[in-house]
């Protein structure tokens, strides 16, 4: 279903975690403009931060010459965030479940799980292409 785009911005940064606070500031500011309440704004911001962290570390292997592209789109009933890196993409079926007792005490592996907890839809372009798309609000 084609929905009207109310607001849209694009941000390009490079693969260095020093940019994460800027990413979060943009997310917060966009959510604010879109009229999100503080609670939604917070969890969207965390989700975006996690997705961009993954794009930097896993997708682009922390190579600071490689860009990460981020777009925020406000439609009437949802927010769509797209994070694009230049890696291999994610094979979702390979992701271990962090709630599994076997994984519960692992130091990592909770990023994507959190994104999926807070955003209504999460898409990965697999097996290659390296983008993920998260949206909050009504389903497609």
């Amino acid at each position, binding site marked *: 279903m084609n929905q009207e785009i109310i607001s849209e911005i694009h941000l390009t940064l490079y693969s260095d*975690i*020093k940019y*994460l*606070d800027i990413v979060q500031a943009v997310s917060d500011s966009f959510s604010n403009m879109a009229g999100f309440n503080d609670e939604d704004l*917070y969890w969207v911001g*965390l989700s975006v*931060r*996690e997705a961009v*962290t993954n794009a930097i570390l896993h997708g682009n292997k922390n190579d600071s010459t490689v860009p990460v592209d981020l777009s925020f789109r406000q439609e009437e009933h949802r927010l769509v965030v797209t994070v694009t890196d230049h890696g291999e993409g994610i094979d979702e079926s390979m992701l271990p479940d*962090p*709630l599994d007792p076997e994984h*519960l*005490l*692992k*130091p*990592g592996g*909770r*990023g994507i*799980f*959190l994104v999926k*907890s807070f955003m209504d839809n999460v898409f990965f372009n697999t097996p290659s292409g390296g983008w993920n798309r998260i949206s909050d609000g009504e389903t497609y």
Partner: protein
Amino acid sequence: MKIETRTIDGVTILDVSGKITLAEGSVDVKKSVRDLLDSGRNQILLNLGDVKYIDSSGIGELVSSFTTVTNKGGKLKLLNLTLKIRELLAITKLLTVFECFDDEAEAVKSYS
């Protein structure tokens, strides 16, 4: 992130403030905990009341601090979870792992 250390009745309390994130160097928590273990202190209480933000990397630090302390025969518990941290630990089922307190005296007493 800032970490201050104090000891009450044999329990070392780490007052953590600021952000526990990848970008802020979430490893600082783990490092502080390691240093404590090296100096023979293994009854540890992490006060998270002034933690403004935590990401999945920060949660990972809490978990690995917990396992390190437990493996050395010590105890690591949490004090003053903010609503956001509580929600994150609930979602990730880590509330079942960590002993958490809202009252410092009660937390300290639980070690004895």
